[in-house]
Structure formats: C-alpha cells, structure tokens
C-alpha cells in the first residue's frame, strides 16, 4: 500500500478528524483528512495534466507546511518520485540537486526559493515547471513561462479531475512495490550529496516497523497523538515523524511557523511525541539553564533544589533503564507540584509521552537532564539508506549512551574486523540515484548495508556507536580517538554551540570552539562585559577563560591522550551558506580544516 493509498483510506475512515494544523495569522488552521486527500488528489491530477509520467521526479524546496504534504502525497499518487530540497540549500546546491535528480517540476515556496531556481536554470534543462506557493513578489512581476502559481496549478488539476475523474485512481491502482517513492539526498559531509532511492516497499517496511511496531514511539502512535513538525521534511527523520507517522498511524501534524519559533510553538501545541536532533535538545537545555540562572532569588533556590532531585531521579532512571522506583516516583510527584509541571509546561513538554533524539550523536548529560525532569527520552539510530530502520531505545529498557536495541524483525551485525555496524532488511534502499559505484560501495555482496558507523555491543542487547568510521582520529602517537564523544561533552555546556576536535596525525588533540551567542551574550551582560559582534565576544579574555573552564571539566573525564591540550575560538558562526555546515547543520570537517587552517596551524605551530 502506498502512502497515497493510506491517506485515501484515512480520508474514508475518519474524514472529519484533524490531519494537520498550520498557524496562519495567529490561528492554527485545521485540515481534516477529507480536505487533505482532496488537495493531494487535485495536485496529483495537476501533475497528470502537466504530463508527469510514472518515475518522473517532482522536487520541492519549502519550509514545512501543508503544501509539502499535498505535494508529497500527490506525487506518490501519480507514481512519480518526490525529491526534497532543504530551504537553506544555496543556489549552487539547488542547481546540483535539480540537475542530478532531473526533476521536471519544482515546487518552490516563495520568491527566495524561486530566485535560487531561476539563477541555475541553464544548468537544469529537464526542469519544465516551477510552481510557487507564495505569490508575493512573483506574480505579475516575474516573466518566465516556466513559472506557475500553486493555486493556478490546482485549478488545472481540478479541471483535469473533472475531465478524467478516474485518472489518478488508475495510476494508484497500477502502483508497484518497487516504484521509487522518494529520493532523499544525504547531506554529504565529505562529497556532493547522494540521492538515496526509497521504494514503496521500503517505506511500507519502515512504517510497519517504526510506526506500527512502535520502534520510534512506544506504545505505537495513534490518532490522538499530537506532533510538531519543524525539522526539514527532506530529511528522512522528519519525514518519518511527520508524513509517515501521519499517514501510517493518523497522528495530528502541527507545522511550526519556523525553526526560530519552535519553543513558542511547542508551548502552544504541547505535543505528545517529540523528535529532536541533538542541536535542538542542547538548545532547549541551554535556554532553560540561562533562564533559570537569571530568575529571581526564590525561584533560583527552588530550581536548584529540584534540579538536584532531578539529577538523582535521572541517574536512578539511567540505572533502571527508565523504570521508576517507588523512591523516584515519590520524589518526582512532590517535585511535580513545585517545579517539574511548570517547567515542562514552559518548554512545551508537559504532555510528551515519548521523546526521541537521533540523526546525530548526543551527549548523555543532555538526555539525563530531560529524563530527570520527567520527559521520557529515547535515543534512536538509523540512516537514510536503511529507511532509518536500525536501532532504538525502548521504554523501560533505556541504556544511556547507547542507541538502543535492533528493531524487531531486522538483522543487524557488527563487523568483527572493522567494527562497522551493518543492517539487512526490507527497508534497505534501492540504491543511489545515477550512482551505481557509490551504491556498490555501500553494500556488501550478500546484501548487508554498510552504515559507516563504528559500534559495539553493550550487554549483548544494546548498540553503542563510537563514531563515523571516517571521522575517527588517529593521533601521531597512533591512538584511535572518537571525536564526536569529546565534542558532545563540550556541547553539553550551554555556552558552547560548536566544537570540532582536531588531532589526526598530530602530536596532541586540540579543538576549535564556537560559543552560543545567546547564552554567552547573556552571561557577559550579567558580568557587565561590553561586546559588539560575535567575534568580539569570542575573543574576550573572560569568555576564553569560561571556555577553558569547560574544557578543563571535560578533560577530567578523558584519558590523557584524548585530552584537549589547546583550543581556539571560531571567529564566526558556522553557516550552511558558507559551506561550513551541511543542510542538516552537521559540520563539514574537511571544509573547516581548510577554512580555519590558520587557527589550527597556530595551535600546532
């Protein structure tokens, strides 16, 4: 059953229940399942009217919004392939992705995205239509025969639907299990992005395992569950939690206004299942700590008391795998009245019954904080190439520092020679689009997917990931060091946003550190340290001393060879546009090493 068929069935079974909400002019506008399916059908008909054939690619570059889902489901209904582009992709990457995928239609959110596409139009001969959703600044102003307004396109679709009412239904009936449903371009920390092809059966397997099977939220999600959709939908994780959860289990999707308003939207929506990448959890934690620090006297005393209790509760939960004991339950119940209830309400997690972190490694301290204040936190692991089906922590069997147990019904092994984690199941991707050599390199001859992550078994049941294979540092002394663990320990501090550990073929380990402007700025203000820019603040001796103290604290827990002997401050905030981060905000090590070579050489000079 395709995603489109699932949405159709839901529209028939529960037409008037809310499928999604989006905030428009201060009001959360609701879309029912019946309306959802209407829109998706209109879009599918519009695609047919444009002459889209099975297997053609339809690209979308937009923030999360209703039209994203209409496009996705409509495209699947027309048996075409959805290609998601990050809204932050700069024009050069847009050009690469559009030309590489050979998309015939691009749905661009607004003028910003249309401009990017128009700038690289000559590199994308296959691109026939650019559909813009927000007409502001484009309509009646831009003169390009490939441009078409979303509403006009939908109108075309309705007309087509009037003429051939069964056309989409016929397409859907002809759908095959090996139709390529979506191309997900992996962010590519090393080379250009690669387009992983996921077929209808891949997605079906993923929905069966991580949605129905409770792999990503246990007990399994249901139509009463409320989600907040705020991470880029072109990433496999958000696609699962938004589109697949929604179509597969009927959860209610709420689109955040933007990444900047996530905290506010969380408070309004109070989701029941919440997925976040480490950066989000770190940022929420930093925000909480800084706000608590600047609270009035009585509130600070209260906070210190209950955070202390939370730490003990969290530590106890870590020991028991997430199961409450009588003592922790009692302590938590009293704390609920004085602190935890209000705190969770404020950060929008009052009703969270399953919180998950994934897509990158996270420091255990961060997870422990959330477990302590009563947010049931679970670390998950998966990657685009295996439809994100690999491992996950289960409620009551949480092991902090691990990514959990293999999902039910899959095969997972750790290669005894290299320590690499490998998976084999029906969710394993079809291959990289137009890149057979890379596909061959990612698979073993007997059908195991090579994840590229180095891991080990913990107690024989849980998997612990050491690092990405290609990130492992071998110092001049020949010691293997996993940088992400050190980096995450640093990033667990509210003051540190970025940390890049360096030491490959070097005599000692060093680091480049980027401060969190909000929290350090607030910290500086309280100390009456005047500053102008990010760079100015970074270079203040007091700030360096602050970072030094954090580094020292982290060093205490590290083996001597792993300790950070020197560090330098990053002179700017890392940015996707400048090529320092990937679209998913992961650091591109090679680019950093080149861009900040001066600082690095200074340390070893």
């Amino acid at each position, binding site marked *: 059953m395709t995603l489109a068929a699932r949405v159709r069935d839901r529209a028939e079974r529960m037409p008037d229940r809310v499928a999604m*909400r989006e905030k428009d002019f*201060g*009001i*959360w*506008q*609701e879309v029912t399942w019946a309306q959802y399916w209407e829109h998706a059908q209109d879009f599918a008909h519009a695609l047919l009217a444009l002459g889209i054939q099975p297997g053609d690619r339809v690209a979308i570059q937009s923030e999360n919004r209703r039209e994203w889902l209409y496009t996705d489901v409509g495209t699947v209904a027309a048996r075409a392939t959805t290609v998601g582009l990050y809204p932050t992709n700069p024009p050069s990457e847009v050009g690469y992705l559009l030309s590489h995928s050979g998309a015939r239609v691009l749905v661009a959110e607004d003028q910003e995205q249309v401009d990017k596409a128009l700038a690289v139009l000559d590199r994308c001969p296959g691109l026939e239509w650019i559909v813009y959703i927000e007409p502001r600044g484009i309509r009646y102003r831009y003169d390009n025969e490939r441009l078409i307004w979303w509403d006009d396109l939908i109108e075309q679709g309705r007309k087509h639907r009037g003429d051939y009412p069964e056309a989409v239904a016929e397409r859907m009936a002809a759908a095959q299990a090996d139709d390529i449903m979506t191309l997900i371009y992996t962010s590519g920390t090393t080379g250009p992005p690669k387009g992983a092809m996921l077929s209808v059966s891949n997605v079906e397997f993923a929905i069966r395992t991580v949605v129905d099977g409770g792999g990503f939220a246990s007990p399994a999600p249901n139509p009463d569950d*409320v989600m907040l959709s705020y991470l880029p939908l072109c990433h496999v994780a958000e696609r699962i939690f938004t589109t697949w959860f929604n179509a597969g289990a009927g959860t209610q999707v709420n689109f955040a206004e933007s990444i900047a308003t996530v905290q506010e939207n969380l*408070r*309004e*929506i*109070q989701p029941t299942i919440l997925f976040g990448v480490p950066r989000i959890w770190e940022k929420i934690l930093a925000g909480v700590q800084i*706000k*608590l620090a*600047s*609270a*009035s006297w009585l*509130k600070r005393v*209260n*906070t210190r008391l*209950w955070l202390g209790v939370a730490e003990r509760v969290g530590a106890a939960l870590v020991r028991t795998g997430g199961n409450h004991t009588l003592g922790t339950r009692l302590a938590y119940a009293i704390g609920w009245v004085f*602190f935890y209830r*209000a*705190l969770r309400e*404020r950060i929008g997690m009052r*009703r969270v019954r399953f919180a998950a972190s994934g897509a990158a490694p996270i420091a255990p301290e961060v997870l422990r904080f959330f477990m302590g204040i009563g947010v049931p936190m679970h670390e998950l692991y998966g990657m685009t190439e295996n439809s994100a089906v690999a491992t996950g922590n289960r409620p009551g069997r949480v092991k902090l520092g691990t990514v959990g147990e293999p999902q039910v019904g899959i095969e997972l092994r750790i290669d005894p020679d290299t320590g690499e984690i490998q998976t084999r199941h029906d969710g394993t991707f079809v291959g990289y689009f137009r890149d057979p050599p890379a596909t061959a390199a990612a698979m073993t001859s007997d059908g195991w997917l090579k994840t590229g992550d180095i891991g080990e078994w913990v107690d024989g049941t849980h998997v612990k990931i050491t690092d990405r294979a290609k990130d492992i540092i071998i110092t001049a002394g020949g010691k293997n060091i996993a940088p992400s663990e050190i980096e995450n320990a640093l990033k667990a501090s509210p003051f540190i946003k970025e940390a890049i550990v360096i030491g490959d073929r070097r005599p000692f380990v060093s680091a480049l550190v980027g401060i969190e402007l909000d929290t350090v700025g607030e910290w500086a203000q309280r100390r009456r340290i005047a500053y102008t820019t990010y760079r100015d603040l970074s270079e203040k001796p007091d700030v360096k001393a602050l970072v030094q103290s954090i580094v020292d604290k982290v060093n205490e827990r590290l083996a001597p060879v792993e300790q950070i002997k020197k560090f330098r401050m990053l002179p700017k905030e890392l940015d996707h546009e400048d090529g320092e981060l990937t679209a998913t905000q992961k650091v591109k090590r090679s680019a950093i090493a080149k861009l900040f070579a001066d600082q690095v050489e200074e340390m070893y000079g």
Partner: protein
Amino acid sequence: MRGRPLLYTSYRADMALLNTPAKRVSLGLLVLLGLALPFLLQDSTLNLLAMGCVAAIGAIGLGLVTGYAGQVSLGHAFFFGIGAYTSALVSGETGVRTMGLGVPNLLVWLPAAGLVALLFGVLVAPLATRLRGLYLAIVTLGLVFIGQHVFGEWGSLTGGTGVGRAPARLELFGYDVAATDSMGTREQKSFWLMFSLLIVFALAARNLARSKVGRAFTAIRDRDIAAGVIGVNLSRYKTIAFAVSSFYAGCAGALLYPLVGFIEPGTFSLLLSVQYIAMVLIGGAGTISGAIAGAFFITLLPSLTRGLQPLVPFISTSPTELPNIFQVETILYGVLVIGFLIFEPRGLFGIWIRVRTYWKTWPFSY
C-alpha cells in the same frame, strides 16, 4: 484541543470574553461571593459596598474613554449629574417645587438617564475629535462649570443650590427594592440589585473592549495618527468612546443617589470628576477590573481613614477643627494619585499583573 490553553484554532476562541478556564472559575467564585455578602455583612457596610458597585459602573465608563481610548475627560461629573436629574425627573411626581414625569420603574428611568447623558456625550464629541490632551481636558472642565451653573439655577428640575430634590426610586414593576420586607432589608436588596447591574455593565464593557471598537480605542490611545493611518475612523470612534462613557456615567449617576437619598446640585463639581479620575488611575487605566478595584478602593477609603483615626488622636473628626479627618482624606487622594502615578503607573491592576506574572513565569522570571 483539550488541555492546551494556548492553542487557538479560531479567532472566536482567541478573543473569548473569558478565554481561560481560570478566568471562568474565578469570575464564578467572585459572583458567588458577591451574592453571599449580604448574609455576612452589616447593613451599613452593605450600603457602602452598593455605592462601590455604582461608583464602579461610573469608573468603568470613564475608564473606557480615558483608559482605553486615551481621551482625558474631566467632565464626568457633568454626565453624572445629567443622569441623576434625568432619573429623578422621570421617576418623581410633580410636586410643589420640582417637576416629574411619574414613571418610577427602574427599567424606564435607568435607560432614560443613560440615553440622555449619551446624547450630551455625542454633542460634546465633535470637540473631542478636534482636540487632544490638555486642550481636551480644559474643554471638558468647562462642561463641569456649565453644568454646575445650570443645575444651580434650574430650580424646577434640581430644587436649586442648597435645597436639592429627592432622587429616583428603586422600584421594579411596582416592587419597591428600597423597602425592608420578607426578602431582606433595604440594604441587602439594594446591594443585590447594584451588584447584578455592575456585572451586566462590566461584562458589556469588557465585551466592547475586546471587539473591533475596543481595538480601535486602544489604537487611538497609543497613537491617534498611526491609528488613522491604519484605517481607524478617528471621529467616529472618539464619538463612540464619549457616547458609551457618558451612558455609563449617566446610569451611575441615576443609581447612586437613591442610595444616598438626596441630590444636591453642588455635588456635581470638579471634585467628583477628580474622584473618578483617581479611581481609574489608582485602579489601573485601560482595564475593566482595574476600574472596579479603584472604585471600591476610593469608596471605602473614607471609612478606612475614619477607622484609623483613633490611632492618630491629634487629627480631629470635627470639620471645624484643624487638622481634621476630612482634610486628611483630601490630602490622601492627592498623595495616592501621585504615589500610584510614580511608583505603580498601572495601578492596583498592575500589582495584580505582577503577582500573576510571577506565578505564570514560574520557574523562570520571564
């Protein structure tokens, strides 16, 4: 969705009169407490509280024009007087000295008093739409003097200075509220009446404040030029503000004197206007609850100072000696207004807001 107070899926819910469960519950409890008060308090206290209710209606009216729409009006006493005399005229019988129409039903004379005052408000409004700030204050001040002169001279209506006339009678379809019977004493029944009327007037004002009209008022208050630019019809909304405010003042004027028992033309002086300004400022400009709080505060202040008088025996209770308690009261008004404007510009309501914010932001401070 249940249990998510910040999630609004319609503007109707967003703008609801009582948009949170806490407000609904606390209003319900307040109303219950109010209805129970006559069984708990002395009749003299009840009379004072009934006056507080009426003063609150007047203060809400001034709050609408001054607090919400930002038009300083010192002419409240004038509209007050118009309401008082209209009601007396409609309700009273033609006697030896004064005339009357002989319709004692409250449901007739109360709206009549409000509407006549409203009419005068509309007449004054064209001035207000052309003037701002101090100039408007002076013009409305002029109204008070015109009013005092007319009330003083028009003997057949007001009885004349120093003589006065009987106020309207609290009568509902022939049932005399102001007479002790099996239902309760005169004070108990008039408190219930005034309290119910206060609820009606307060809810109506709050409803107005949350509507398009109310938003236009605040826009004009914050910056009239900007309000005009965004499409608020200034003369129209200033007129509405004065009209509604005068209506409230008229009703309050009509209701207050049956409790006092007597209308003396000299009472509608600048002092009365200033008293109402004090209620609005001390309570908190720009809020309905603030106006109510301020009205009760100012109404209860004299009995409070009199209760504290034994503690400072050198202050006399006799108006002929110096220093006396009445002077202290007047000084206290001034001190309170100055104090509030300097230290708590948002009034009593501001204090409440601060307390509420403290708990609302728990465990943070912002």
